């Protein structure tokens, strides 16, 4: 149990430091133009990675499972210009349905 509590304490400090680095070093300043170009592209790169890893990643391997059905449902809902809530609830329902029958 000591290990658990030590991990919790150290991780709280390390995690806070990671999140504080950018705001402390760069806060309130306007970044140079080249940096703005990079930051504008950060969202598409990170969001795509989160989508594919959250859908197809399971630990250290790739898998096509019920989550893929959820993503497919989300793609359809987005193409139909459904509201955000419908997109995410639809994805959960499709995933739950596939898990229920498999």
């Amino acid at each position: 149990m000591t290990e658990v509590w030590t991990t919790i304490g150290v991780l709280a400090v390390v995690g806070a430091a990671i999140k504080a680095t950018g705001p402390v070093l760069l806060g309130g300043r306007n970044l140079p133009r080249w940096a703005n170009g990079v930051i504008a592209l950060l969202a598409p790169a990170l969001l795509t990675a989160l989508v594919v890893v959250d859908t197809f990643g399971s630990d250290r391997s790739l898998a096509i499972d019920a989550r893929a059905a959820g993503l497919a449902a989300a793609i359809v809902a987005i193409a139909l210009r459904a509201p955000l809530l419908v997109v995410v609830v639809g994805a959960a329902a499709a995933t739950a349905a596939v898990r229920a029958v498999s």
Partner: protein
Amino acid sequence: MSGPGTFRDGIRAGLPFFLPTAAIGISFGVVTRSLGWDLGAPIVMSAIVYSGSAQFAATSVLGDGGTVFSAVLAAALVNARFLPMGMAFAPALEGGPVRRAAEGQAVVDASWALANRGGRFDRKLLLGATLPQYVGWFVGTVIGAVAGSSIGDPAELGLDAMFPAFFLALLVPELRASERALGVAAAGGLLALALTPLTSPGIPIVAASLASLYGVRRR
């Protein structure tokens, strides 16, 4: 939303994530209790670490008999994406370094993406959006830790599939914005997929962010 958002707008924007975040918090509470953790440990961890992916990473390393060092390292790598995300958020912050550091703690994936206005960030919207997620994460963990395995599996409800669907919904307008964004997104996604079997969790996401370096090129 077109103009700058208020804190209240942020709370409203973050509210749809209360339930899925709470559900994952419940599974975190259940998992840690099944590993023999004290009742207070998952609850304190969720309160002061507040990062689902990092907490699961550290927990699984400890559960496999790993050391404190390797557990913290794994979790830090999972959270390394908050380094570039925090740098992107920084210009929107005001006040001294302590206040900026404190407000930087509010950066989580969903809030960061919601507050993104083409590379500039809406500070109040981000802070507000994190509040319902923090409450959901904490309350969910308490429920899971107290109830333990008497609760069913939250995965059966498919709630874990809400996050990629949400990220996709935020991604689509980004892709429509420019051809550069489409190319960079494809490169980042392929890089993340390719690295998933090869590296520890978290690295693929961080590596994908490197694709954005294409932005140093002038249009």
